[in-house]
């Protein structure tokens, strides 16, 4: 077995990948031409894929750095894959730079906070919440955190890669180049760990600028991590199918599979944490995010959990499935597309609202539909009374919608508006529960009914001038253009990756952990497993 092999990026592979890139460009152009006046579909497709593939490069670097720091030895034979993947951040700087230029030049309306005058108290479109976030959501900080941080990470990735490449030819008996890698890896962890949160807040979470979640960056990072692991899995299996990496055995695949399984559970944990905290607190400006997605984007919402949790969890739970090349490729492919789907879910619904708001403002209206209640012009002390009043009005105007018994409604009408003021805490869910409670008086029941009618009224208002919530290809679910752009960006990523991979030997020959990695054996005992693919029982 010749370890010192070099990957050869053949003309045929280049042609296929260039074809993929051409498809991506065609689909980007198509979505640009066949679009609304703000080219929302084009820009969201661009943002979605730029963040996804740049994030994969970042997480490959982060994962590699974490493993080097933790003295991991099993992965030495595959670490050149992560090194090459991390170099894509260089392209990412350009991709994200285009978005930053778009922010400065107001070329796109991905970010509602970037609307001119929105933070100006004298402007008719003044938004109090966004004015409060001005120090964070502004073009300068956007550029620093989205392009600047990326450039900083790339510097580390470049240095780590350089130390690894130099190790092949210049390594000393005291492992100076290995130690150099350790320094770059360990120092990257805090830099990458802390700054990636800001990167994701600015680039993805700020698409919904009124909304915030402290779990968001974790959850999005876990998503990128899985994207990186699943792409790594597919690349390993592809390289093996070409005859490279015969020293990568089932045990290596098993460990990659454990990460794919474990981080999928971790992702689900974070996804659910974010959901449950917001669901439990029931804070209007936070809950609207999920309400919007569950009601109008159910395929995205539930599909996300199905592909990214149910599928990898039940397939990879068994020992033997993580050791099968075919099964692993299948799961990795689903998880890879699944997390692309996850980012689609994070970006598209919010951007659709932002585009609607931009349209409203272009028509000279004050955006109202999706702005959180806090930003309403009503003075603070009068707010509860105002809301109660609107709820009462709603009861009158929407009497036909009353789903509760007439008795309840009648009582609600006669009740004092001061008592009604308390109803502003009640949600539609409340209403289902409250009348059923043995302790609930009629009056409380009436509150519930009243509150719901209030909500109905609000919905009615939305339906009149709110953003269109109906099915729309490219927003409700990814369309063919989205898939084409995805393939285009993936081809770009792989083209760059293979070009980087062929620069040096596939195995870091002088790495101190090489022997451990070559003899890696998880000790898993799976019946009927052949010794093909270089299974580790060669002692």
């Amino acid at each position, binding site marked *: 077995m010749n370890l010192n092999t070099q990957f050869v990026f053949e003309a045929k592979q280049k042609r296929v990948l260039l074809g993929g890139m051409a498809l991506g460009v065609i689909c980007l152009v198509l979505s640009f031409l066949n679009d609304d006046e703000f080219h929302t579909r084009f820009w969201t497709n661009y943002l979605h894929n730029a963040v996804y593939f740049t994030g994969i490069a970042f997480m490959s670097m982060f994962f590699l750095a974490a493993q080097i720091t933790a003295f991991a030895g099993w992965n030495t034979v595959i670490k050149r894959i992560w090194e090459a993947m991390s170099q894509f951040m260089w392209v990412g700087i350009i991709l994200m730079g285009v978005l930053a230029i778009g922010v400065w030049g107001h070329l796109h309306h991905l970010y509602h906070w970037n609307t001119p005058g929105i933070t100006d108290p004298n402007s008719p479109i003044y938004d109090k919440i966004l004015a409060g976030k001005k120090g964070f959501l502004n073009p300068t900080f956007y550029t620093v955190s989205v392009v600047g941080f990326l450039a900083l990470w790339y510097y580390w990735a470049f240095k780590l890669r350089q130390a690894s490449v130099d190790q092949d030819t210049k390594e000393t008996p005291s492992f100076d180049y290995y130690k150099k890698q350790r320094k770059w890896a360990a120092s990257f962890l805090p830099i990458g760990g802390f700054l990636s949160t800001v990167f994701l807040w600015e680039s993805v979470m700020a698409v919904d600028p009124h909304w915030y979640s402290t779990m968001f960056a974790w959850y999005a990072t876990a998503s990128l991590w899985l994207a990186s692991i699943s792409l790594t899995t597919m690349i390993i299996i592809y390289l093996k199918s070409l005859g490279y990496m015969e020293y990568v055995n089932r045990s290596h695949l098993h460990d990659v599979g454990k990460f794919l399984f474990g981080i999928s559970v971790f992702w689900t944990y974070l996804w*659910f944490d974010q*959901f*449950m905290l917001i*669901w*439990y607190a*029931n804070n209007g400006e936070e809950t609207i995010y999920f309400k919007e997605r569950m009601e109008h984007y159910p395929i995205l919402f539930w599909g996300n959990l199905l592909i990214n949790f149910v599928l990898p969890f039940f397939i990879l*739970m068994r*020992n033997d499935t993580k050791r099968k090349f075919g099964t692993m490729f299948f799961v990795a492919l689903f998880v890879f597309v699944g997390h692309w789907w996850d980012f689609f879910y994070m970006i598209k619904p919010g951007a659709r609202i932002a585009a609607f708001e931009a349209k409203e403002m272009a028509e000279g209206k004050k955006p109202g539909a999706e702005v959180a209640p806090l930003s309403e012009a009503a003075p603070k002390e009068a707010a509860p009374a105002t809301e109660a009043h609107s709820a009462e009005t709603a009861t009158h105007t929407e009497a036909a919608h009353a789903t509760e018994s007439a008795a309840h409604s009648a009582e609600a009408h006669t009740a004092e508006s001061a008592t009604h003021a308390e109803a502003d*805490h*009640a*949600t539609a*869910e*409340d209403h*289902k*529960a*409250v009348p*059923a*409670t043995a302790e609930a008086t009629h009056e409380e029941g009436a509150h519930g009914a009243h509150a719901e009618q209030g909500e109905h009224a609000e919905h009615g208002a939305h339906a009149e001038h709110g953003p269109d919530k109906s099915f729309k290809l490219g927003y409700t679910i990814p369309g063919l253009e989205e898939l084409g752009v995805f393939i285009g960006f993936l081809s770009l990523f792989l083209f760059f990756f293979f070009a980087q991979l062929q620069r040096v030997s596939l195995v870091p020959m002088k790495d101190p952990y090489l022997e451990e990695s070559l003899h890696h*054996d*998880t*000790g898993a*005992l*799976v*019946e009927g497993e052949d010794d093909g693919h270089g299974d*580790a*029982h060669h*002692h």
Partner: protein
Amino acid sequence: MVSDSKQVLYGLYNDEEDLKGAIRAANAAHLDIMDVYTPFPVHGLDPILGLKESRLHYLGFIYGTIGCLFAFLTMTWIFTSDWPIVFGGKPYWSIPAFIPITFELTVLFAAWGMTLTFYTICGLWPGVKAQSLDNRITDDKFCIAFDVTAASDNAVDGLKQFFGTTQAAEVNIKTM
């Protein structure tokens, strides 16, 4: 308990690679190994001993499923019919609020179930007397043991010879 006692002939090796070589030699000579003891899990030992994959994890899945259903159904019963209370304005049957406890009980049932099953299979229960051929096999020695209760002197000599040729550091016989 005389009738239960066993004569065990065992050899101690200094290195796991010597041990694995010796097991291969014993397999080639069709010797019936009673058991092998090592101070730590030795990778690659199971296939040469012909051990099958443990079925314990199938039970783990079943225990986990029981815990999952138990938690979810119990909470459903409590919060919808036994003692319904409104928490934070949420519906009685609030699935998201049940998930953390469902998860915890799934893990708890799987962990306890597998642990107790494992102890039962291995005959470990409170008050059981520790049976150890040699205390050093929990430290730095690797051991192959043969049951020689019913073996002829000839056969025992053959086994001793086997230990000699495979470079066992020590050979002992013990009644357990």
